[in-house]
Structures are given as structure tokens and as C-alpha cells.
């Protein structure tokens, strides 16, 4: 139904979307997940040309909508869109919000449109609010009206742009229930969402987007239970990471420690684990730095919320230098401390980079 080829979107030379190619088939419910700022919303908005792509082609029912002579408004009528911020027409009642499109665009009679609108409002459970104005509704009610408004245009597909992000947690479920019901009825939908459980249950295909591309694409069971790629894994496991670069032997240890403490506090790590992390890091850097000709070290902490593990990675560019195998280190006091406090200690040398990874013991 929708086919996207080599879609690229740039804002002032910054690529938001890079060569995206994918297809949405009729009847599919697609969830688009991924970290913030990776182009999920932009991708969705490109589909109905609320954003004009920089290059690439989009076919809807085999019509290239980027061609000049394509009647874009007509195309848009087939694609409903639900916004994060609802965007109900403030000057119209709920009922009028639902009838303005059918009457003005589809040429329906006012009576027919109103009849249909009342039906749709019943569907989303808001028939009694027909004469209210948007500013008299709660967030969840607004979003349900917005969904009904989409349906009033009898679209072939609905694009949801983070439909629950602006909602109180208490109102999320009422909106998700409506979407679930639509999915059940076979509506084609593309949903950008952060509700992982919902995405897993409702969709029959998941797109994981990161860094402007579709990073991984597959059935929900695969993406959520056996993600193939590193970043997908990190995302699914809800990995939070902290990176600190060191480029001088006289780096500011206390500044780095303060940031690490802040990271640990943010993710509510036990105090013991935090102290151990600082101790291990200090020992390792003390061992590393004198041996390097040029100091270019990156320290990365990665905390997985799902597994509740904290991993530490130290990357140092330069000649190969394995601290683990160095016999001189065998009895070293610092190395002993590191070994005692960590597990899964691993070393790798690749592309002129010494990488040491370990997990802090619990």
C-alpha cells in the first residue's frame, strides 16, 4: 500500500532520515520504536508530506506522491493522522470536528456526516461529549476524539505519531484500548510509540529506527525477544549509557567522578556498586595512562534497566597493550582489586584500539 524508496530528509545539512526503503502492506499494524531523535516522527510525517522529503520516492497505491501533478490533499484524505498534541479544532465542537472533513471534503450531507459522527463517537465512548469544545475535554478524551475524527474521513491507513506521549499515565490505557480495537478490526496502521508492551501485543511488525535508518525490521517476537543487532538489544533492554572521553594525562578525575556519581544516582544504583565503579575506574586509568604514548581514552558505563547490570568499557587508542596478559600485572595491587570487583573481564584489540570490558559484580 505504501512503498518508500531511498527516503532522505535533511534539516540544514543534518540528515534526519537516510535512504530509508520499506513497505507497508494493507492490513499491517506497524509499530515504529527507537530512541528519541532518531527520525521516527519525521518518517511518519514524510509519509503524508507534512514534511517534504529531501530525496527519494513514496508510492501510495503505486502513485508517486512526490510528483508535482499528484493531488496531495486527495492522497492525505486516505491517510488519517493522529498527533501527539491532539490538534482538535478549537473553534468547533466535538461533533463539528468530526463532520467538517466529510462535509467539506467528501461532499457528504450534513445529516449523514452527523449520523456517522455520532456512531464514531459511540465507538470511542464519547457520544455524550458531542457538543463540547476541545478545551472542555481531558487529554485522553481529546485523543479519542482525534482518532474518531480520523475515522470520519474513512481512511485506508492511520498514522499515529506518539499518540500517548502527551497523556497522563492514567489516560494512556483508554487511548490504547481504542487503537487496539481498530487493530482488531483490521485497520492498517503505523504507530510511533514508546509503549513497548503495547507495540508487542498490537502490532504484527516492528521497525526499530536508530540514527536515521531502519535499523532492524521484524516480527515483534523477534525484535523484542531475540533482537539481532547490538543497538536493538541495548534499546530493548533499555540500556542507559554514560560516555566520558579523556584526552590528557592530567585529566580532571574529580569532575569525572562527579558525573559518574550523578549517572548512578539517576538510575538509582546501589551505593556499593557506585563506589566500586569509581574504584575500578581509578585503578585501571592509573595502570593505563603511564603506558600510553598519547592519551585518548573513552570510558563508557552501560546500565541495563531490564537486567539490572552495569558494564564498564574502556577504549584506548594506540599500540596493542593487554593488561590482562601482562605478567608484570599479575601481582599488581590495582589489578587485583579490579579482578575482585568485576566479572566477565575481556580484552580486545581492533583497529588500533584496546578495548577492555567488564561487568561490575553485584
Amino acid at each position, binding site marked *: 500500500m505504501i512503498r518508500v524508496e531511498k527516503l532522505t530528509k535533511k534539516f540544514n545539512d543534518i540528515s534526519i532520515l537516510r535512504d530509508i526503503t520499506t513497505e507497508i502492506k494493507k492490513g499491517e499494524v506497524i509499530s515504529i520504536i527507537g530512541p528519541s531523535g532518531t527520525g521516527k516522527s519525521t518518517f511518519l510525517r514524510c509519509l*503524508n508530506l*507534512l514534511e517534504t522529503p529531501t530525496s527519494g520516492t513514496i508510492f501510495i497505491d503505486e502513485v508517486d506522491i512526490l510528483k508535482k501533478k499528484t493531488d496531495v*490533499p*486527495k492522497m*492525505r*484524505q486516505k*491517510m*488519517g*493522522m493522529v*498527533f501527539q*498534541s*491532539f*490538534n*482538535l*479544532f*478549537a*473553534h*468547533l*465542537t466535538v461533533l463539528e470536528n468530526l463532520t*467538517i*472533513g466529510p462535509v*467539506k*471534503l467528501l461532499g457528504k450531507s450534513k445529516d449523514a456526516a452527523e449520523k456517522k459522527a455520532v456512531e464514531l463517537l459511540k465507538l470511542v465512548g464519547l457520544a455524550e461529549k458531542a*457538543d463540547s*469544545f476541545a478545551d472542555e475535554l481531558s487529554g485522553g478524551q481529546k485523543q479519542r476524539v*482525534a482518532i474518531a*475524527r480520523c475515522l470520519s*474521513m474513512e481512511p485506508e491507513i492511520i498514522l499515529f505519531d506518539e499518540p500517548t506521549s502527551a497523556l497522563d499515565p492514567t489516560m494512556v490505557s483508554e487511548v490504547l484500548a481504542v487503537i487496539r480495537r481498530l487493530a482488531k478490526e483490521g485497520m492498517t496502521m503505523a504507530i510511533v510509540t514508546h509503549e513497548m508492551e503495547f507495540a508487542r501485543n498490537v502490532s504484527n511488525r516492528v521497525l526499530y529506527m536508530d540514527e536515521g535508518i531502519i535499523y532492524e525490521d521484524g516480527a515483534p517476537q523477534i525484535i523484542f525477544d531475540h533482537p539481532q543487532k547490538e543497538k536493538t538489544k541495548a534499546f530493548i533492554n533499555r540500556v542507559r549509557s554514560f560516555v566520558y572521553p579523556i584526552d590528557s594525562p592530567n585529566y580532571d578525575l574529580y569532575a569525572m567522578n562527579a558525573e559518574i556519581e550523578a549517572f548512578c544516582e539517576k538510575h538509582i544504583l546501589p551505593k556499593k556498586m557506585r563506589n566500586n565503579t569509581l574504584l575500578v575506574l581509578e585503578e585501571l586509568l592509573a595502570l593505563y595512562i603511564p603506558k600510553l604514548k598519547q592519551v585518548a581514552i573513552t570510558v563508557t558505563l552501560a546500565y541495563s534497566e531490564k537486567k539490572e547490570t552495569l558494564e564498564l568499557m574502556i577504549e584506548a587508542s594506540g599500540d596493542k597493550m593487554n593488561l590482562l596478559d601482562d605478567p608484570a600485572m599479575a601481582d599488581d595491587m590495582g589489578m587485583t582489586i579490579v579482578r575482585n570487583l568485576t566479572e566477565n573481564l575481556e580484552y580486545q584489540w581492533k583497529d588500533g584500539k584496546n578495548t577492555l570490558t567488564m561487568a561490575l559484580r553485584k
Partner: protein
Amino acid sequence: MKKRITLNRLGFMALWCILLLISGGCGEQKKEITSLDDLKNVKIGAMTGSTGEALSLKRFPAATTKSFDDIMDAIAAIKSNQIDAVITSYPTALNICKHNQNLCLIHEPVDYEDTAIAVKKNEKELLASLNQIINELANDGTLDDLKKRWLKTDMSPYEEKEFDLPKEGNVLTVGTAATREPICFINGKNEVSGFDGELARIISIKLGRPIVFKDMTFSALIPALMSGKVDAIITGMTATDERRKSVDFTTPYYKNSQVMIVRKPKGADKASVNTPDESAKSGTKAITSLDDLKHAKIGAMTGSTGERLSLARFPTASTKSFDVIMDAVAAMNANQLDAVIISDPTALNICKHNQNLCLIPESLDKENIAIAVRKNEKDLLASLNNLIKDLKNDGTLDDLKKRWFKTDTSPYEEKEFVLPKEGSVLTIGTSATSEPFCFINGKNEVSGLDGELARIISMKLGRPIVFKDMTFSALIPALLSGKVDIIISGMTATEERSKSVDFTASYYQESQVVIVKKPSGAEMASGNVPVDEAKPDTDMLRTMDDLAEKDVGVYEGTVHDSFVAKKYPKAGIKRYNSSADMVMALKTKKISAALLDALAASVLIKTNSELGILDNDVLTLPLGMGFNKKDKDLLNRFNNYLKTAKSDGSFDVIYNRWYKGDPEKAQMPKFKRVSAEKKLVVGVAVEDLPYVAYMNGEYVGIDIEIVQNLAQNEGFDLEIVTMEFPALVTALISGKVDMITDGIAITEERQKQIDFSDSYADFNTAAIALKKNIAAISQEPVDESLKISFFQSVIDGFNNNLIKEKRYLLIVNGLTTTVIISIFATILGTFLGALVCFMRMSRNKLVNSIAAIYISVLRGTPVLVLLMITFYVVFASVNIDPVFVAVIAFGLNFAAYVSEMFRAGIEGVDSGQTEAGIAIGFSKIKTFIYIVMPQATRRILPIYKGEFISLIKMTSIVGYIAVQDLTKASDIIRSRTFDAFFPLIMVAVLYYLISWVLMLALGYVERMTDPKLRTRKGR
């Protein structure tokens, strides 16, 4: 010596005041102070730290003493009734009373004191040399000379001496408090001047030291001297013991007295009225000769020669410029001006209408009035010059002058012209607010000498003319830009103007004269106003001959006019257009007696109990109906009818009905309208019963009944038209009406112009006057409700400014114009504003910046300037209706403002609304129409309303481009009536009403766009 004389004279004045207070019985006013004894319990103002303050506290312990830093603050306080008296030194007091007519001095001095120069203690050397100088000055008479020159009682300017002051040497710093004219004040050159200023300069020369003045508040002087900021204080400071403790004083150079200033007691005015000599000399502002104008405020018309003259001849006077003459006259009436300079014919006219104003008979300058023509229009200029030469030679110009420049208020005899209708139109610029040169007459046409001259020119040149009426200062720009072809508007041919336009030969030499308020008392003395309480006896009327030197009211254009003029040449003739005016004038004592038809008089005195008949048989004249000389047939038919009616007795029935019985109760028989081909148009003036009146929607009266009978008998379709009495004859001659009637007396003079029918009745003239003034009946008790109430004066103003000469038509037309301009400018501005807003929001840089420039330029230009540019520059060579130009100019201006409002309103609508609209499938335009605009409108309307209101009010400047809007209409009316109050208040109210009505309309739109209100109402 001189001082003593002055004192005596002022003492005389003060005595008068006191005497009047006692005799006039005004003693019930509590706070009137005439002697020092009255000061015991009052509030006295004094200057902080002055001897006056100490004196006031000592001499009047029970009084409240208020301290002021500045003498003018104290004066302001006394004027606003916050204090009752001010104590200050004699010369200052003198000066203050000179400038404030409502203040006066109490002539017992509170105390005498020595004025001396203060010097820092222990400066023995300086003190010694100053003492020596003062001694010298006292001996050689310099001090006396100073006193003579500075302490004046009249308004003549000070004779300041120029000194060559030493420039080198040790500077002497002199402290002054220069707010006390004439002792010490800042003169026009921003220097410390006055008695002390000159003394200081003399000292500077004698000491051989340059001086520097430091001007400060009085109370700061001694501290400044002690701290060495100044070396000496010369500012009329009294050498008191207390001050001697801190500073040293020289020998006194002036013996000063502290006196009290108080408000003039009520009635003092009357006193001065009775002694006009005194009032003139004691420094009131009466101006009787040109020399008195030196320091006066003089009004002149912007860009007129009067303005230039005023500046040149009276450099010390302040000249105020006005756009129209009636503003200047209004300003003078409101005491904001002392004199107005204008040309003599206009001045004559103004004085004619404003009894409290008079001319100064010396003329300032003679100047030539000519027609202005655009440069290089040699042909037109030459033909106009020839024409003027012809008019001069054949006496037409003299005739014009005779007919238009009258000294009395008799009506103008306007001639009717048959103007050419074909040919190239000659557009004539006028500024029709200076009667008798150029004014708008009752028929809303440009009239006056210039108006007639223009019509003569039109005939001689064989070209139709169009008048464009605009403000005087806009005339030359209009000529230059080709909006008008020539200017005929009493314009003086000055050199400066000749640079930009050409002038024809002069058609009138006018002189610029000065109008001033009549010196108080002059009115009384001249006896023009007979109602003088001072000499009530002479008001008593016994016979008609007592009217010989009084003001007599007559109907404008009636035989009484010439009758009074012939019989009592010294009597003042006041002409009125209605008996209502005449009665009003009688009641308000503007006239002593009124002459009118005896029957009408008997009706009048029935309804006005305070009036009585002085003489019932002043003059008897036969009455006839007037016919056009060319229409002998109609005349004959009428005479035949009259003859038959008289012989068959039917006329007697009519005559008895109206003459013998009470005409108020007379019932006129009903007449059917004859639907005949022949129309008979009868002109009447609806003067009053028994002749013609308009009652219950019908014309009634003896004249009407006769005419109706005539129409019935002879088979005419009768049409009665109403016009002013003086216009009847003109209308008949010009063929506008077939016959005229309204109690018209048959006179020789009239017979020259029209034919009269046989007489159908006699016309007895009665003189009526206030009963109490009629000797025969003055003993009868009279209802004393004669004073004009405010209500009555409003009615008077209403009649004068609206009803008379159908001036309401001017207002109605003006109102229509204002509303048209406002509404169309708003519509144009709104659409243009929407376009500009659209451009401003465009992403195209060029389009965007065009809009931005448009907005900033239009918002940065005054609308008046924009209006003039549009008319005189943009559409200079296009013949275009100025109303249209006004709509364009205001529309352009409005667009600039509302476009930004629109932008703010549109940008205020959340972008999500647009996105949602587009996502549903609306095109951009439809999204705007259905989604954005309704929401933006609600935001815009409140501020849009405000801008709309200010647009309506802004339109009041369109008079600049010859549009007669509401404001201009009131200007025209004011130019005839010289009444500022009624027309201005009326126009203000009308503007308010326009705004209010249009506001209601917008308010309705606002409610309609409120979605909640609309929906709730709809369901």
C-alpha cells in the same frame, strides 16, 4: 514723584473697590479682603525665608501662613482659591497685579523695609566698596533712574540698558532668585534682568570685575553666600536683623514695602467699567491702539500676510497661527488671544457678529488682493487681467464692494447668474470661511465677493466653474499640483507667493487691521447696548422717538428695515429671520424694541406675557402678492380673481376669519388639490400667522387661503415652496417660483423688481418691547422670568447653528461623508491589509520585504501628510473626487495597521491546527479559511475595533483636501455664527454616535464569531 502719583491713583482704585463692595451689597462673599484688618483669619502665602513670611507670622498670628518657594506658585495658589492673600514686596506685587487682572493690592503697606546687597561676613573690603558705590549711585540719581525705568505701573516694555561689562579680572558671583519681576527676573534673552540685574551690572563696571549670576531659590541664597558659592546677593533682599547674624548687608539701595495681593472683590469690574479711564491706565489689558500690542498675544491665519505682519511689526508679541479665522476669534473670545490680525472686510464682518469685539482703526498695512494663477499659464493670466481691468472700468468691482462690504448686518444682495455649462471647466480654489470675501451661503454655495467675482469670470470667459473649498494653507499647493486652476479667495499678492504662483492685477486693495476685545466700558459708554443697569432711566420708552438711538429689531429684508434706517438713522438695526429670534433678542435685551406686523405682534404678546406693544400704528402699508414682471398673465388672473372675490363677499369671509378673529383658532376650509397640467409654484417664507404658517402639516393663513382659492378657481396644481424671506424676490425673478406671498408690503423699491397684485390687506406695523421698559405699562407687575436659562441658550444655539439657513443640511451631508469615508476606508483597508499580511507572511524574501517596507513607511507617516500626498502629488493631474482620495489614503493607512494585527492573530493560532487541517486533506487555502481564520478573527476583533474607532476620528482632517465632512461642516457653520460651543459639542456628540453605532455592529460580529455563544444559541 511718579511713584506717589501711581500710588494715589491706585489708592483711588482701591477706594472704588471698597465703595463698590459696600454699595453693591456684595458683602455676603466671605472671603473678600479689602484691608489689612480682614486678614486676621485667612490663609496668607509668603516666600520661604522671606521677610514677608516673618511679617505674616508676626502681624497675623491667627492667620495661616503658607510658604512657597516661588512667587508664581503663591500666585497660582491665590488664583485657585487655596490661599486668600500673598505678602510680597511692593514692586513685585505691582507687577503681578499688572499681569493678573483679578488680583489687586491692599494699599496699606504691611511694613517698610530696607533692601540691600548681602555680602559674606568679614569681607570688609567688598562691603566697603559696595557701600561706596551705592552711595555714589544714590547721589548721582542712578538709583532713581533705575526705579523709574523698572518699577512701572503700565504694560509698556522695560527700557533695558546695554552695558559693556568688564571681561577680565576677578569674577564676582552674584546670587539671585530671578522670579520676581520687576526686581529680578529672566528676560527674553535668558539673562538675569530687572532692577537688580542692572544694579549688578553697574556694580560690575564700577568694581571693574566681570560678573556671573547664579540663579537659585530664595531660601538657598544665604547658605550659598555663606558657603562661598556666591560673593554677593543682589535680589531685592531685605536687610533683617536675623539675616545680619549670618551675613553683612550694604547700605540699602531701595526702601521697599511689603504689601498684600488679594483677589479683586466681585464688582470691581463694574467699578472699572464706570471709570474706563482708570481701567485703561491701571494695567488691565484693554488694547486701544497698535502700540498696546507689543506684548500681546496676537492671532493670525497660518501662512497669511497677517501672520507675517504680526511677526514683523510686533516682534515682542507672541503670534499664534490659526488655520481658520473662527478659531482665532473663538480663542480671542476665550481670552486666549489679545488681538487678531486679518483683512478689514473680514474684520468688519466679525465685529458685526461679535459685539464684544472691535477694530483698531489704524490699519497695519495695505495689500493687494488678486487672483492666483499657476506660473506659465500666460493666456489665462492675460485674460483674467483684461477682465479685471474691464470690471474696474465699468464699475462692477465698485458695485461688488458696495454690495458685499457692508458695515451693517443688512442681508447681502446676491445676484443670480446664468453660468455657462459647456466648455472646459475652470476649477477655483477657495477657502470659504472668511465672510464677506468668501463664504458658504444658505444654499451651500460659495458666495461672497470672491464667489460673485468667480461667477462673473466664468461668464466672461465662457467657461463653467467648479469651486473647491479647502483650508487656506492648502490653496497654493492645490494650485501648484493642478487641483485647481485659479485661486480666488481674498488672497494677497505677496512677493513670497509670487515666487510660486502668478497673480493677476489686484481686484481689491484691502488693509490688514486688528480686532481686539472692546475695552471694558466702551460698550456702556457708546450706549449701543441700551440695557445698562447703571442708567436704567434712559431705557424707559414712552414713544417711538425714544427708540431713536436704540437697537431695534426688524425682519430681515422687510420694509421696516429701510423705515427705521430712514426715520432713526442713529438707531441700531438688528435683522432677524424669525419672530422667535426677535422675541429672544427682546427678552435677552439685545434690542430695545422690535418692529413687526401688528397682527403678528398681537399674537406674540399673548404668548409672551412680559412683552407689550409700544405703538400699534408705526407704519401702514398695503400688502400684495408678488409676480414676475414677465408673467403679466398670471398677475391679471389673480387681480381678476381678487376683484370678483371682493365683490361677491367671499373675500370678506376670508378676511374676517384671519383678521378679525383669533388667527390661532381660525379653521381654514379644506381644499382639494387640483390635478391640472398647469403648475403654480408659490414661494412663502412661513413667517407667522395671519399670513402664512405651517400647522399640523399644512400651510395655513390668509395668504394661503387666497392662493388656494385662486388655484381652485383658475385650475392650477398648487405647489408651495418654503424659503427665506429675503430670498423670495430673488426666487421670483429667477423663475424658481411663479408668485410669492407672505405678508409682503408693496413698496416702490420692490416694484422695481417685481409686479404686485392689487392690495388684499393692509399691513400695520407695531413696535413691541419689554413691558417694564414701556412707560405706559411699566407699572404693571411683570413676570420676572426673563433671564436666559442654560436650557434656553441651548435652544438658541440649536436654532442658530442648525435650523437657521437649513444648516442641518450641512451637518447631514457632512455626516454622510464622514460615514462613507469611514466605512469604505475600512473595507478597502481590511482587504488591502489582508493582502499585505499575506505578503508579509510569504516565504518569498522580496514579497516579504515589500510588505515590511510598506508597513513601516505607512505607519511612520502622519495620516494628514499621507492624505495630502495622495491628493496633491499622486493624483495631482487626475480629476478625481476627493472623497475617493480620502478613502484611498485612509484605506492605505488602515491597511498598514491591520495587516500587522492580522499577522499577530494568525500567528497566534497554534500551528498544530494547520497541520491537523492539512492532514485531514484540506488544501492550504481551505485550511486557512475553515480552520485558521475563524480562530484568528476572534483574536483580532477586539484590537481591530479600536483601530476602526481611531480611523473614524482621523477622518476629521479631510477638510484639507476639500472634502466637506462633519468637522468641515461645523467649521462652515462656525464661520457664520461664530459660536464655538454648540457646533463643536454637537459634532463631538455626532462622532461619538457614529463610533457607537459602528461599534455595536462590530460587537455583533464579535459575538457571532464566538463559537461557544453561537453553538449554545443554535441549539
